[in-house]
Protein backbone atom coordinates (compact mmCIF):
# COMPACT_ATOMS: atom_id res chain seq x y z
CA UNK A 1 0.00 0.00 0.00
CA UNK A 2 1.46 3.37 -1.03
CA UNK A 3 1.32 6.33 1.32
CA UNK A 4 0.17 9.88 0.61
CA UNK A 5 0.48 13.19 2.43
CA UNK A 6 -2.96 14.83 2.34
CA UNK A 7 -2.65 17.59 4.93
CA UNK A 8 0.13 19.95 6.01
CA UNK A 9 0.37 22.57 8.74
CA UNK A 10 3.11 24.79 10.11
CA UNK A 11 3.56 27.23 12.96
CA UNK A 12 5.96 30.01 11.89
CA UNK A 13 9.56 29.33 12.93
CA UNK A 14 11.65 31.71 15.01
CA UNK A 15 10.67 33.14 18.39
CA UNK A 16 7.07 33.17 19.63
CA UNK A 17 7.11 34.15 23.32
CA UNK A 18 3.30 33.98 23.54
CA UNK A 19 3.08 30.24 22.75
CA UNK A 20 4.69 27.20 24.33
CA UNK A 21 6.34 24.65 22.04
CA UNK A 22 3.38 22.35 22.62
CA UNK A 23 0.93 25.07 21.58
CA UNK A 24 2.96 25.65 18.43
CA UNK A 25 2.67 21.93 17.70
CA UNK A 26 -1.09 22.02 18.28
CA UNK A 27 -1.39 25.06 15.99
CA UNK A 28 0.40 23.16 13.21
CA UNK A 29 -1.68 20.02 13.83
CA UNK A 30 -4.99 21.93 13.57
CA UNK A 31 -3.86 23.46 10.26
CA UNK A 32 -2.81 20.06 8.89
CA UNK A 33 -6.16 18.50 9.87
CA UNK A 34 -8.02 21.42 8.33
CA UNK A 35 -5.92 21.16 5.16
CA UNK A 36 -6.95 17.50 4.80
CA UNK A 37 -10.57 18.28 5.69
CA UNK A 38 -10.54 15.87 8.63
CA UNK A 39 -10.87 16.10 12.39
CA UNK A 40 -8.53 14.98 15.14
CA UNK A 41 -10.99 12.20 16.08
CA UNK A 42 -10.57 10.77 12.56
CA UNK A 43 -6.88 10.05 13.20
CA UNK A 44 -6.17 6.38 13.89
CA UNK A 45 -2.63 6.92 15.19
CA UNK A 46 -0.01 9.60 15.75
CA UNK A 47 3.77 9.80 15.98
CA UNK A 48 5.44 12.93 17.26
CA UNK A 49 8.57 14.35 18.82
CA UNK A 50 10.07 17.28 20.64
CA UNK A 51 13.52 17.56 22.22
CA UNK A 52 12.98 20.45 24.64
CA UNK A 53 9.26 21.25 24.70
CA UNK A 54 7.70 18.26 26.44
CA UNK A 55 6.25 14.96 25.28
CA UNK A 56 4.58 15.10 21.89
CA UNK A 57 1.64 13.02 23.11
CA UNK A 58 0.69 15.91 25.38
CA UNK A 59 -0.79 17.29 22.15
CA UNK A 60 -3.81 15.22 23.23
CA UNK A 61 -4.38 17.74 26.00
CA UNK A 62 -4.65 20.47 23.39
CA UNK A 63 -6.43 18.61 20.59
CA UNK A 64 -8.60 16.25 22.63
CA UNK A 65 -8.19 12.83 24.22
CA UNK A 66 -9.37 10.25 21.69
CA UNK A 67 -7.67 7.06 22.87
CA UNK A 68 -5.49 6.52 19.78
CA UNK A 69 -1.98 5.04 19.94
CA UNK A 70 0.24 8.12 20.15
CA UNK A 71 3.96 7.29 20.18
CA UNK A 72 6.63 9.75 21.30
CA UNK A 73 9.72 9.72 19.10
CA UNK A 74 13.12 10.99 20.22
CA UNK A 75 15.95 10.72 17.72
CA UNK A 76 17.87 13.98 17.82
CA UNK A 77 17.84 15.98 14.59
CA UNK A 78 16.25 13.00 12.84
CA UNK A 79 13.21 13.03 15.17
CA UNK A 80 10.85 14.29 12.46
CA UNK A 81 12.24 11.91 9.88
CA UNK A 82 11.90 9.02 12.33
CA UNK A 83 8.26 9.90 13.09
CA UNK A 84 7.52 10.08 9.40
CA UNK A 85 9.21 6.75 8.74
CA UNK A 86 7.19 5.13 11.51
CA UNK A 87 3.94 6.56 10.14
CA UNK A 88 4.89 5.44 6.65
CA UNK A 89 5.40 1.88 7.92
CA UNK A 90 2.15 1.93 9.90
CA UNK A 91 0.15 2.73 6.76
CA UNK A 92 2.22 0.71 4.29
CA UNK A 93 1.77 -2.40 6.43
CA UNK A 94 -2.01 -2.04 6.29
CA UNK A 95 -2.25 -1.56 10.05
CA UNK A 96 -3.81 1.92 9.77
CA UNK A 97 -5.49 4.03 7.08
CA UNK A 98 -4.83 7.56 8.26
CA UNK A 99 -2.78 9.27 10.96
CA UNK A 100 -0.86 12.33 12.06
CA UNK A 101 2.83 13.12 12.38
CA UNK A 102 3.83 16.14 14.44
CA UNK A 103 7.07 17.79 15.54
CA UNK A 104 7.60 20.93 17.56
CA UNK A 105 10.22 22.51 19.78
CA UNK A 106 11.30 25.54 21.74
CA UNK A 107 15.00 25.86 22.63
CA UNK A 108 17.03 28.32 24.64
CA UNK A 109 19.34 30.67 22.81
CA UNK A 110 22.94 29.74 22.01
CA UNK A 111 24.61 26.53 20.93
CA UNK A 112 23.10 23.28 22.17
CA UNK A 113 24.97 21.89 25.17
CA UNK A 114 25.15 18.16 25.01
CA UNK A 115 25.68 15.72 27.87
CA UNK A 116 28.60 13.34 27.26
CA UNK A 117 27.15 10.65 29.52
CA UNK A 118 23.96 10.43 27.45
CA UNK A 119 26.11 9.53 24.44
CA UNK A 120 28.31 7.04 26.24
CA UNK A 121 31.32 9.39 26.35
CA UNK A 122 33.42 10.25 29.41
CA UNK A 123 32.78 13.52 31.26
CA UNK A 124 36.39 14.62 30.53
CA UNK A 125 35.46 15.10 26.85
CA UNK A 126 33.03 17.86 27.73
CA UNK A 127 35.21 19.35 30.49
CA UNK A 128 38.09 20.12 28.13
CA UNK A 129 35.80 21.65 25.52
CA UNK A 130 35.39 18.97 22.86
CA UNK A 131 31.64 18.37 23.26
CA UNK A 132 30.65 20.92 20.60
CA UNK A 133 28.72 20.11 17.43
CA UNK A 134 30.04 23.33 15.89
CA UNK A 135 33.61 22.02 16.12
CA UNK A 136 32.69 18.85 14.27
CA UNK A 137 31.05 20.72 11.42
CA UNK A 138 34.00 23.11 11.21
CA UNK A 139 36.55 20.29 11.16
CA UNK A 140 34.59 18.32 8.57
CA UNK A 141 34.34 21.23 6.12
CA UNK A 142 37.95 22.27 6.86
CA UNK A 143 39.12 18.86 5.68
CA UNK A 144 36.68 18.90 2.77
CA UNK A 145 37.86 22.32 1.55
CA UNK A 146 41.46 21.07 1.74
CA UNK A 147 40.66 17.89 -0.21
CA UNK A 148 38.22 19.26 -2.83
CA UNK A 149 39.09 22.91 -3.31
CA UNK A 150 35.95 24.54 -1.89
CA UNK A 151 36.50 28.26 -1.17
CA UNK A 152 35.48 30.31 1.85
CA UNK A 153 33.49 32.54 -0.52
CA UNK A 154 31.35 29.53 -1.51
CA UNK A 155 30.52 28.97 2.17
CA UNK A 156 29.42 32.62 2.38
CA UNK A 157 27.31 32.27 -0.77
CA UNK A 158 25.41 29.31 0.73
CA UNK A 159 24.33 31.49 3.65
CA UNK A 160 23.53 34.42 1.37
CA UNK A 161 21.17 32.19 -0.64
CA UNK A 162 19.55 30.85 2.54
CA UNK A 163 18.73 34.35 3.78
CA UNK A 164 17.47 35.51 0.40
CA UNK A 165 15.15 32.46 0.25
CA UNK A 166 14.08 33.09 3.84
CA UNK A 167 13.11 36.63 2.88
CA UNK A 168 10.60 35.10 0.43
CA UNK A 169 9.09 32.67 2.95
CA UNK A 170 6.47 34.10 5.34
CA UNK A 171 7.05 31.26 7.84
CA UNK A 172 10.84 31.74 8.05
CA UNK A 173 12.58 33.27 11.06
CA UNK A 174 15.29 35.30 9.28
CA UNK A 175 13.56 37.40 6.66
CA UNK A 176 16.26 39.95 5.87
CA UNK A 177 18.71 39.32 3.03
CA UNK A 178 22.35 39.17 4.13
CA UNK A 179 25.11 39.61 1.56
CA UNK A 180 27.98 37.16 1.13
CA UNK A 181 30.33 39.94 2.29
CA UNK A 182 28.34 40.42 5.51
CA UNK A 183 28.37 36.65 6.08
CA UNK A 184 32.14 36.45 5.56
CA UNK A 185 32.78 39.50 7.78
CA UNK A 186 30.63 38.30 10.70
CA UNK A 187 32.39 36.94 13.79
CA UNK A 188 34.50 33.82 13.25
CA UNK A 189 33.12 31.11 15.60
CA UNK A 190 34.86 27.90 14.51
CA UNK A 191 37.31 28.39 11.64
CA UNK A 192 36.37 28.44 8.75
CA UNK A 193 32.77 29.07 9.84
CA UNK A 194 31.46 32.50 10.82
CA UNK A 195 28.41 33.41 12.90
CA UNK A 196 26.07 33.88 9.90
CA UNK A 197 27.13 30.49 8.48
CA UNK A 198 25.57 28.67 11.47
CA UNK A 199 21.90 28.04 12.19
CA UNK A 200 20.58 28.70 15.69
CA UNK A 201 18.29 26.74 17.97
CA UNK A 202 14.77 28.14 17.57
CA UNK A 203 11.05 27.40 17.87
CA UNK A 204 8.38 26.10 15.57
CA UNK A 205 5.98 23.29 14.80
CA UNK A 206 4.98 21.19 11.77
CA UNK A 207 2.32 18.52 11.32
CA UNK A 208 1.36 16.24 8.44
CA UNK A 209 -1.68 14.03 7.81
CA UNK A 210 -0.79 10.79 6.04
CA UNK A 211 -3.17 8.22 4.56
CA UNK A 212 -3.40 5.21 2.26
CA UNK A 213 -2.67 6.31 -1.30
CA UNK A 214 -5.88 4.76 -2.64
CA UNK A 215 -7.94 6.99 -0.34
CA UNK A 216 -5.89 10.15 -0.83
CA UNK A 217 -8.29 11.81 -3.27
CA UNK A 218 -11.01 11.64 -0.60
CA UNK A 219 -9.09 14.23 1.38
CA UNK A 220 -7.03 16.22 -1.05
CA UNK A 221 -7.19 17.25 -4.72
CA UNK A 222 -3.41 17.25 -5.04
CA UNK A 223 -2.00 14.51 -2.82
CA UNK A 224 1.74 14.07 -2.67
CA UNK A 225 3.05 10.52 -2.46
CA UNK A 226 5.80 9.41 -0.12
CA UNK A 227 7.93 7.27 -2.42
CA UNK A 228 10.54 6.56 0.21
CA UNK A 229 11.36 7.33 3.84
CA UNK A 230 14.69 5.95 5.05
CA UNK A 231 16.67 6.32 8.27
CA UNK A 232 20.26 5.17 8.69
CA UNK A 233 22.76 5.35 11.55
CA UNK A 234 26.53 5.50 11.28
CA UNK A 235 28.65 2.51 10.40
CA UNK A 236 32.10 1.87 11.80
CA UNK A 237 34.62 4.16 10.10
CA UNK A 238 32.42 7.13 9.23
CA UNK A 239 33.48 10.57 10.50
CA UNK A 240 30.81 11.70 12.95
CA UNK A 241 30.05 14.30 15.56
CA UNK A 242 30.99 13.59 19.23
CA UNK A 243 33.74 11.07 18.41
CA UNK A 244 36.79 11.12 20.75
CA UNK A 245 38.51 9.07 18.06
CA UNK A 246 37.83 7.79 14.60
CA UNK A 247 39.09 4.87 12.57
CA UNK A 248 41.98 5.29 10.16
CA UNK A 249 39.93 3.59 7.46
CA UNK A 250 36.92 5.63 6.44
CA UNK A 251 33.57 4.47 5.08
CA UNK A 252 30.62 6.44 3.74
CA UNK A 253 28.51 8.22 6.35
CA UNK A 254 24.82 7.60 7.11
CA UNK A 255 23.76 10.30 4.62
CA UNK A 256 25.26 8.37 1.71
CA UNK A 257 23.70 5.14 2.95
CA UNK A 258 20.24 6.66 3.50
CA UNK A 259 20.33 8.48 0.16
CA UNK A 260 21.22 5.39 -1.85
CA UNK A 261 18.50 3.36 -0.13
CA UNK A 262 15.90 6.09 -0.68
CA UNK A 263 16.67 6.42 -4.40
CA UNK A 264 16.51 2.67 -4.80
CA UNK A 265 13.20 2.46 -2.95
CA UNK A 266 11.68 5.24 -5.07
CA UNK A 267 13.11 3.92 -8.34
CA UNK A 268 14.50 7.32 -9.31
CA UNK A 269 17.94 8.94 -9.38
CA UNK A 270 19.41 12.26 -8.24
CA UNK A 271 19.04 13.68 -11.76
CA UNK A 272 15.26 13.23 -11.54
CA UNK A 273 14.86 15.42 -8.43
CA UNK A 274 13.37 18.87 -9.08
CA UNK A 275 13.79 20.42 -5.62
CA UNK A 276 15.86 19.36 -2.59
CA UNK A 277 15.97 20.34 1.09
CA UNK A 278 19.34 19.30 2.56
CA UNK A 279 20.50 19.60 6.18
CA UNK A 280 22.29 22.95 6.45
CA UNK A 281 23.20 23.14 10.13
CA UNK A 282 25.89 25.39 8.74
CA UNK A 283 27.03 26.43 5.26
CA UNK A 284 29.59 23.67 4.91
CA UNK A 285 27.00 20.99 5.65
CA UNK A 286 24.92 22.03 2.64
CA UNK A 287 28.01 21.90 0.42
CA UNK A 288 29.07 18.43 1.58
CA UNK A 289 25.51 17.08 1.65
CA UNK A 290 25.04 17.97 -2.04
CA UNK A 291 27.66 15.38 -2.94
CA UNK A 292 26.83 12.90 -0.15
CA UNK A 293 23.24 12.78 -1.41
CA UNK A 294 24.41 12.12 -4.96
CA UNK A 295 23.51 15.46 -6.56
CA UNK A 296 27.07 16.12 -7.75
CA UNK A 297 30.62 14.84 -7.50
CA UNK A 298 32.86 15.97 -4.62
CA UNK A 299 34.31 19.34 -5.56
CA UNK A 300 31.71 20.24 -8.19
CA UNK A 301 29.85 22.32 -5.60
CA UNK A 302 32.31 25.17 -6.05
CA UNK A 303 31.19 25.81 -9.62
CA UNK A 304 27.53 24.93 -8.99
CA UNK A 305 27.14 27.32 -6.06
CA UNK A 306 29.16 30.13 -7.61
CA UNK A 307 27.05 29.90 -10.78
CA UNK A 308 23.74 30.06 -8.88
CA UNK A 309 22.60 26.53 -9.76
CA UNK A 310 21.24 26.00 -6.23
CA UNK A 311 19.03 29.12 -6.29
CA UNK A 312 15.25 28.83 -6.60
CA UNK A 313 15.43 29.48 -10.34
CA UNK A 314 18.57 27.36 -10.85
CA UNK A 315 19.02 23.86 -12.23
CA UNK A 316 19.32 22.31 -8.72
CA UNK A 317 17.22 24.35 -6.25
CA UNK A 318 18.28 23.62 -2.66
CA UNK A 319 16.70 24.78 0.61
CA UNK A 320 14.06 26.85 -1.10
CA UNK A 321 12.43 27.89 2.20
CA UNK A 322 15.70 29.23 3.59
CA UNK A 323 16.74 25.94 5.25
CA UNK A 324 17.94 25.71 8.83
CA UNK A 325 20.05 28.84 8.32
CA UNK A 326 16.98 31.06 7.83
CA UNK A 327 14.48 29.02 9.86
CA UNK A 328 16.57 28.03 12.86
CA UNK A 329 16.52 24.51 14.17
CA UNK A 330 13.69 23.48 16.49
CA UNK A 331 14.92 19.88 16.63
CA UNK A 332 11.56 18.11 16.73
CA UNK A 333 10.12 20.13 13.84
CA UNK A 334 13.12 20.67 11.59
CA UNK A 335 12.96 17.54 9.44
CA UNK A 336 9.20 17.90 8.98
CA UNK A 337 9.65 21.51 7.86
CA UNK A 338 11.59 20.20 4.88
CA UNK A 339 8.74 17.84 3.99
CA UNK A 340 6.20 20.66 4.44
CA UNK A 341 8.22 22.81 2.03
CA UNK A 342 8.42 20.07 -0.58
CA UNK A 343 4.67 19.41 -0.42
CA UNK A 344 4.10 23.13 -1.02
CA UNK A 345 6.53 23.04 -3.95
CA UNK A 346 4.95 19.95 -5.53
CA UNK A 347 1.46 21.39 -5.11
CA UNK A 348 2.64 24.64 -6.70
CA UNK A 349 1.65 26.55 -3.56
CA UNK A 350 5.03 27.91 -2.47
CA UNK A 351 4.26 31.49 -3.53
CA UNK A 352 7.28 33.74 -3.77
CA UNK A 353 9.67 30.84 -3.15
CA UNK A 354 8.01 28.54 -5.71
CA UNK A 355 10.43 26.65 -7.96
CA UNK A 356 9.41 27.22 -11.61
CA UNK A 357 8.55 24.44 -14.05
CA UNK A 358 5.95 22.39 -12.12
CA UNK A 359 8.33 20.33 -9.95
CA UNK A 360 7.30 16.70 -9.71
CA UNK A 361 9.88 15.09 -7.39
CA UNK A 362 11.14 16.50 -4.08
CA UNK A 363 13.94 15.26 -1.81
CA UNK A 364 14.56 15.90 1.90
CA UNK A 365 17.60 15.07 4.02
CA UNK A 366 18.41 15.58 7.70
CA UNK A 367 21.62 14.76 9.54
CA UNK A 368 22.20 14.82 13.27
CA UNK A 369 24.17 13.61 16.25
CA UNK A 370 25.63 11.11 16.85
CA UNK A 371 25.59 10.13 13.19
CA UNK A 372 22.06 9.56 11.86
CA UNK A 373 20.45 10.59 8.64
CA UNK A 374 16.87 10.53 7.32
CA UNK A 375 15.86 10.94 3.69
CA UNK A 376 12.45 11.17 1.99
CA UNK A 377 11.48 11.33 -1.65
CA UNK A 378 8.08 12.85 -2.49
CA UNK A 379 6.24 12.73 -5.79
CA UNK A 380 3.07 14.47 -6.88
Amino acid at each position, binding site marked *: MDVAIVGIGIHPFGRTPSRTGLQQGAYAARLALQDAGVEWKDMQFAFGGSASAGNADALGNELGLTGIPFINVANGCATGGSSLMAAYAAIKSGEHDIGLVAGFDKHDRGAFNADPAALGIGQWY*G*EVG*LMMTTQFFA*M*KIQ*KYMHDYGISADTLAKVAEKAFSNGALNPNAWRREPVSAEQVADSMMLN*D*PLTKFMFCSPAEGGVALVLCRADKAKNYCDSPVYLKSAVLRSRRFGSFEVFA*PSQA*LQQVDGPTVDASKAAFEMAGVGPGDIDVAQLQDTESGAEVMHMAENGFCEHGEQEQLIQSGATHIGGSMPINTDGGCLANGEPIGASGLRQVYENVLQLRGQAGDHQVPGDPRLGYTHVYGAPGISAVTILQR
Partner: protein
Amino acid sequence: MSKQVPIVEGLFTWPAEQPALLGSRCNNCGVAAFPVAQSCMACSGQDVSVEELPGRGTLWTWTVQRFMPKPPYHSNETPETFQPYGVGYLELPGGVRVEGRLTENDPEKIRIGMEMDVVFDTWRTEDNGDEIITFFFRPVSEPAQEG
Protein backbone atom coordinates in the same frame (compact mmCIF):
# COMPACT_ATOMS: atom_id res chain seq x y z
CA MET B 1 49.76 19.34 49.67
CA SER B 2 48.72 19.79 46.04
CA LYS B 3 49.24 16.97 43.58
CA GLN B 4 48.91 16.24 39.87
CA VAL B 5 45.80 14.19 39.05
CA PRO B 6 44.80 12.85 35.61
CA ILE B 7 41.46 14.20 34.38
CA VAL B 8 40.21 10.61 34.39
CA GLU B 9 41.93 7.32 35.23
CA GLY B 10 42.80 5.14 32.27
CA LEU B 11 42.87 7.81 29.56
CA PHE B 12 46.68 7.89 29.59
CA THR B 13 49.51 6.46 31.67
CA TRP B 14 50.05 8.62 34.77
CA PRO B 15 52.32 9.07 36.55
CA ALA B 16 54.90 7.88 34.04
CA GLU B 17 58.32 8.91 32.85
CA GLN B 18 56.99 9.08 29.27
CA PRO B 19 53.20 9.33 29.58
CA ALA B 20 51.16 7.95 26.65
CA LEU B 21 47.54 7.84 25.56
CA LEU B 22 45.95 4.46 26.19
CA GLY B 23 43.94 2.75 23.47
CA SER B 24 42.42 -0.67 23.06
CA ARG B 25 43.04 -3.02 20.18
CA CYS B 26 40.68 -5.77 19.11
CA ASN B 27 42.31 -9.19 19.17
CA ASN B 28 39.87 -10.39 16.54
CA CYS B 29 40.10 -7.72 13.79
CA GLY B 30 43.08 -5.61 14.90
CA VAL B 31 41.22 -2.27 14.97
CA ALA B 32 42.28 0.23 17.64
CA ALA B 33 40.07 2.58 19.64
CA PHE B 34 40.50 5.55 21.96
CA PRO B 35 39.65 5.79 24.83
CA VAL B 36 39.93 2.14 25.91
CA ALA B 37 36.70 0.30 25.05
CA GLN B 38 35.41 -2.97 26.43
CA SER B 39 34.28 -4.16 23.01
CA CYS B 40 35.11 -3.49 19.37
CA MET B 41 32.93 -1.10 17.37
CA ALA B 42 34.20 -2.60 14.13
CA CYS B 43 33.43 -6.30 14.65
CA SER B 44 31.51 -6.47 17.97
CA GLY B 45 34.32 -8.60 19.46
CA GLN B 46 34.84 -8.47 23.23
CA ASP B 47 38.44 -9.67 23.34
CA VAL B 48 40.49 -6.47 23.47
CA SER B 49 43.97 -5.55 24.77
CA VAL B 50 45.07 -2.22 26.15
CA GLU B 51 48.13 -0.60 24.56
CA GLU B 52 50.01 2.70 24.59
CA LEU B 53 49.33 4.82 21.49
CA PRO B 54 52.15 6.55 19.55
CA GLY B 55 53.24 9.94 20.88
CA ARG B 56 53.56 11.67 17.51
CA GLY B 57 51.22 11.93 14.54
CA THR B 58 49.95 14.14 11.74
CA LEU B 59 47.09 16.62 11.96
CA TRP B 60 44.09 15.29 9.96
CA THR B 61 41.81 18.29 10.40
CA TRP B 62 41.33 21.17 12.83
CA THR B 63 39.37 24.25 13.89
CA VAL B 64 39.70 27.03 16.45
CA GLN B 65 37.01 27.27 19.13
CA ARG B 66 36.45 31.01 19.41
CA PHE B 67 33.68 31.18 21.99
CA MET B 68 33.58 29.72 25.49
CA PRO B 69 31.51 26.51 25.61
CA LYS B 70 28.72 26.07 28.16
CA PRO B 71 29.07 23.44 30.90
CA PRO B 72 30.07 20.60 31.06
CA TYR B 73 33.08 22.75 29.98
CA HIS B 74 35.13 23.06 33.17
CA SER B 75 38.24 25.20 33.20
CA ASN B 76 39.63 27.96 35.43
CA GLU B 77 38.58 30.54 32.83
CA THR B 78 35.87 33.17 33.07
CA PRO B 79 34.15 34.69 30.03
CA GLU B 80 36.61 37.57 30.48
CA THR B 81 39.77 35.46 30.55
CA PHE B 82 38.66 32.84 27.98
CA GLN B 83 41.20 32.28 25.22
CA PRO B 84 40.27 30.62 21.88
CA TYR B 85 41.75 27.16 21.53
CA GLY B 86 42.63 24.91 18.64
CA VAL B 87 40.97 21.50 18.29
CA GLY B 88 41.99 18.76 15.92
CA TYR B 89 42.19 15.09 15.08
CA LEU B 90 45.72 13.70 15.23
CA GLU B 91 46.35 10.64 13.09
CA LEU B 92 48.52 8.27 15.12
CA PRO B 93 50.30 5.76 12.86
CA GLY B 94 48.97 2.23 13.26
CA GLY B 95 46.39 3.42 15.76
CA VAL B 96 43.47 5.81 15.44
CA ARG B 97 42.74 9.49 14.87
CA VAL B 98 42.37 11.04 18.30
CA GLU B 99 40.51 14.30 18.94
CA GLY B 100 42.12 16.77 21.30
CA ARG B 101 42.97 20.37 22.12
CA LEU B 102 45.93 21.95 20.36
CA THR B 103 48.46 24.08 22.22
CA GLU B 104 48.32 26.44 19.20
CA ASN B 105 45.32 28.71 18.52
CA ASP B 106 46.64 30.85 15.65
CA PRO B 107 45.01 29.61 12.39
CA GLU B 108 48.00 30.92 10.47
CA LYS B 109 50.21 28.42 12.29
CA ILE B 110 47.98 25.36 11.93
CA ARG B 111 47.77 23.29 8.76
CA ILE B 112 46.48 19.87 7.79
CA GLY B 113 49.30 17.34 7.59
CA MET B 114 51.62 19.02 10.10
CA GLU B 115 53.40 16.84 12.65
CA MET B 116 52.36 17.11 16.26
CA ASP B 117 53.37 15.55 19.56
CA VAL B 118 50.99 14.33 22.23
CA VAL B 119 51.90 16.25 25.40
CA PHE B 120 50.49 16.26 28.93
CA ASP B 121 49.95 19.38 30.95
CA THR B 122 47.81 21.03 33.61
CA TRP B 123 44.25 21.68 32.44
CA ARG B 124 42.88 23.37 35.54
CA THR B 125 43.66 23.78 39.22
CA GLU B 126 41.08 22.66 41.77
CA ASP B 127 40.17 24.63 44.93
CA ASN B 128 42.32 22.26 47.00
CA GLY B 129 45.33 23.03 44.79
CA ASP B 130 45.26 19.76 42.84
CA GLU B 131 46.37 20.13 39.24
CA ILE B 132 44.12 18.30 36.79
CA ILE B 133 46.22 16.89 33.95
CA THR B 134 45.02 16.20 30.41
CA PHE B 135 46.54 15.70 26.95
CA PHE B 136 47.21 18.29 24.23
CA PHE B 137 48.64 18.21 20.73
CA ARG B 138 51.67 20.46 20.23
CA PRO B 139 53.29 21.28 16.87
CA VAL B 140 56.67 19.60 16.52
CA SER B 141 59.09 22.49 16.83
CA GLU B 142 60.93 23.46 13.65
CA PRO B 143 64.58 22.33 13.64
CA ALA B 144 66.89 25.21 14.65
CA GLN B 145 68.24 27.24 11.71
CA GLU B 146 71.81 26.34 10.78
CA GLY B 147 74.50 28.99 11.05
